[in-house]
């Protein structure tokens, strides 16, 4: 059982990702100030999804580490998704 090798991510990559995250934050604030009806929720969550994917992949090294971690993280997100979906089967059709 060897320890996994470590990938050193450069400072500039982190700064680039940070800039991207800040831009996305501003975009999501700006977009939600315009009234888009039900789309607002979808867009806000979509942007949040992209932001979290960036954090997971780069800041949390999922992109560079053993694929097992990415597999577990995605699995858990799916699990929560299915739980919400099944719970909504009740509330949507009451």
């Amino acid at each position, binding site marked *: 059982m060897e320890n996994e090798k470590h990938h050193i991510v450069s400072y500039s990559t*982190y700064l680039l990702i940070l800039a991207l995250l800040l831009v996305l934050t501003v975009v999501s604030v700006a977009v939600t100030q315009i009234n888009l009806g039900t789309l607002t929720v979808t867009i806000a969550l979509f942007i949040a999804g992209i932001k979290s994917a960036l954090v997971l992949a780069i800041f949390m090294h999922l992109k560079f580490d053993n694929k097992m971690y990415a597999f577990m993280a995605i699995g*858990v997100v799916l699990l929560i998704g299915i739980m919400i979906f099944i719970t909504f089967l009740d509330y949507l059709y009451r």
Partner: protein
Amino acid sequence: METHRDDTASKIGMWLFLLTEMLLFGGLFIVYSIYRYKNQEAFHQAAHELDVVVGTVNTAILLISSATVAMSISAIQLKNKKFALFLLGTTIVLGLVFLVNKYFEWGIKIQHHIYPGSEVMAQRGQGDILFFGLYYFMTGLHALHIIIGLVFIAVVFARIWNDKISHDNFALHENAGLYWHLVDLIWIFLFPLFYLIT
């Protein structure tokens, strides 16, 4: 018994722990989504009462602090101890600023008697009660995680200072970083759900 070091094991362990944290908040997201679905109008109105500027500033603070923690891990791998300490110190300061912001934000709300069980809340609709109940509970639980994360990072800071953590022995540092990113990750969702969806 001789103890051998297994950095990968502690990293897997940390990740597994993060997964449980995700499900802890996952349960709350289920509650949030159901009540939002049942009280769309009230949630819509209540969200207006939260200050988007404070929320956005706090989001930016957390994102920056997340980046500094990530960079400090690169710094320690590159044997740049001073820079790593500087970055971690920045993270701690930013985390504290986040908490101070949160403190004032809650304080103002509580001054206006908007808190669970208050007379004002009792007169408002049930949707409002649920929205603010979830607001306090979820951001409160998140703030608790910020505090735990800060303690964790402070420990790492001290250990780097004492050279207990170095370029070939930084598993604890990495795990503290992962924890802090998770706190950030949760806020990425809390922010639009409470401040933006109006």
